[in-house]
């Protein structure tokens, strides 16, 4: 863990920072980043997206996946810039369409670990239809949605997950709409693995992303994050550190949630963290298709 901290922090000991080359050489995990290219990131300092990228890299590293056999597919937005920094097969597509591109890629190469990386606006507004149908189809794509409640890259417009009454540049008098429950939507639509955590709980994200990658069917990890630059400023929520602290305070584990009375549960406004859904009753799409191809080869027809 300690090596990753060099990415965002200068060493506190007063020693000279390691040259960039040595950071990468010092860690196999870090070598999954593209060391000669595109650093620093485009993200504002203090942004939560880097924490999710760290969790994703650690998860891939922990599973020992062959980098050639991992594809990262993204759409448009701050979160969608994540793949360019990582040394895999990386596909940065059009706004909202990451899952549709990923679907074609997964069907063409069923053995590839296809991971779609999206923000809340990308995944649930412009890409909402693809999100619902990828889950319904149960295609084996690992989906990571970084939910920071706002369109960050374009400067802070309200998204489908902006809370009611919250401010955004396009909701200057407060948001009249109500937020989309991302994980719950995926469960309803047919996803076979759904987990949610926050960028404060980075180790939890590691584990959920690992589990999601290992799941055969459509899997989702919702990573609740924050945008101090736009959402935080417009809603007077303080610094990145303040918002990270607030995320900790405003979340509870699924176990803690289940101990609440039904009345308390109904009133709960905090983020519930945990594995929310994990089933094995639906066949993954590309496996079903391969079975069809095999049966046709053998001359079997329904």
């Amino acid at each position, binding site marked *: 863990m300690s090596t990753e901290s060099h990415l965002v922090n200068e060493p506190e000991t007063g020693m000279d920072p390691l040259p960039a080359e040595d950071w990468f050489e010092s860690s196999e995990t870090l070598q999954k980043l593209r060391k000669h290219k595109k650093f620093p990131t485009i993200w504002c300092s203090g942004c939560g997206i880097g924490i999710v990228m760290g969790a994703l890299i650690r998860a891939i590293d922990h599973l020992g996946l062959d980098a*050639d056999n991992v594809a990262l597919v993204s759409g448009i937005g701050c979160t969608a810039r994540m793949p360019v920094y990582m040394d895999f*097969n990386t*596909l940065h597509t059009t706004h909202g369409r990451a899952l*549709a591109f990923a679907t074609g*890629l997964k*069907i*063409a190469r069923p053995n590839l670990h296809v991971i779609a990386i999206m923000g809340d606006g990308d995944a649930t507004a412009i890409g909402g239809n693809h999100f619902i149908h990828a889950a319904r189809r149960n295609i084996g794509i690992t989906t990571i949605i970084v939910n920071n409640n706002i369109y960050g890259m374009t400067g802070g417009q309200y998204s489908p997950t902006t809370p009611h009454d919250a401010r955004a540049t396009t909701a200057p008098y407060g948001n009249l709409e109500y937020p989309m429950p991302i994980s719950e939507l995926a469960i309803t639509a047919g996803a076979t693995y759904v987990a949610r955590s926050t960028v404060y709980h980075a180790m939890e994200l590691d584990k959920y992303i690992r589990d999601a990658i290992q799941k055969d069917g459509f899997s989702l990890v919702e990573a609740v994050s924050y945008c101090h630059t736009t959402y935080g400023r417009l809603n007077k929520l303080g610094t990145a550190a303040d918002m990270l602290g607030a995320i900790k305070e405003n979340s509870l584990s699924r176990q803690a949630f289940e101990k609440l009375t039904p009345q308390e549960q109904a009133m709960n406004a905090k983020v519930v963290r945990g594995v929310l859904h994990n089933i094995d009753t639906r066949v993954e799409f590309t496996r079903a298709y391969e079975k069809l191809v095999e049966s046709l080869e053998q001359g079997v027809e329904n």
Partner: protein
Amino acid sequence: MAIQLMQGNTAIGYGAIAAGCRFFAGYPITPSTEVAELMARELPRLGGKFIQMEDEIASMAAVIGASIGGLKSMTATSGPGFSLMQENIGYACMTEVPCVVVNVQRLGPSTGGPTSASQGDMLQARWGTHGDHQIIALSPVSVRQAFDLTVAAFNLSEKFRTPVLLMADEIIGHMREPVELPDFARVPRQDRIVCESPADYIPYRNAPGDVPPMANFGTGYRYHVTGLYHDPMGFPTSRLDEIDPWIERINRKFDDHLDEIILVDEDTMDGARLALVSYGASARSARHALKLARQKGMRISMLTLLTIWPFAEKAIERLAGQVDRILVPEMNRGQIALEVERIAGRNRVQRINRANGEMVTPQMILNAIEADL
């Protein structure tokens, strides 16, 4: 193969299969749906893959994703779906991903006339996606040519790493003709250009012929693909010294190979003062009118455009040097006529248009010929 009575849409599907297409993503839409139905039935028998996506935006995206995964890929649609595909067609232009998009044109705009014929999307094919770009678009005149040009579309798309649009129309798509298809194994196929070793691979390098080899995802070449302007490694760039050479290369790859890309059928006659220029189903009427006029002893030439974009400027220039007047029948209010006028001069071109879902008839063209001569 034996002679069969076959629909244009069926011939398009078989042309794709013969060309090596092994992935189809689409969304039901009249009058193109028969292509999807054929691919759903035939592809899994060949180890290929079919998927019906949630809309045409997703279909186009899945086609590009599958092509990057290494499968020759296609979708088929009509006007409303073609409009929805435009953004991702531009993505395929920008990222240089081969794929084929079939548009069996129907009467538009909007929902228009689903079973009415049209050639109303010819300029959309050229400029439908935003931004300055080049595109290849072909248009078949017969059922057999629907097969042949689908094969050509795949071969051009692989050779030049570009989306290729097959601009059919409702008449060609739904018309049945007796055809004899060639043995699929003997159909000339352009397969993906083999890449150098992963260590030496530069995905968007300035390759000879201006088409860099394309590595399939998951085969040991880890690289970045983006719709942003990118450097030779595929990484986003805003440096003019990287953007300018890229723009030059991606245009040169078309401009330097026009002879290979542009397919026309020239039927010229010595001493002709008048010529017909047409394409698609309208060219069938034009050919019939040509036959009737020649039977009456009139001397007339005809140029059939099989490649619509890039436009056959040289062939039109040649024709304009031979005849005084050019008639352009088409099922729209004069889209390709604009191009002919640009080259031959406006006062030498007469448009023959019908844009209500019905064909331009041979009689309409014959009347125009007789009025002109």
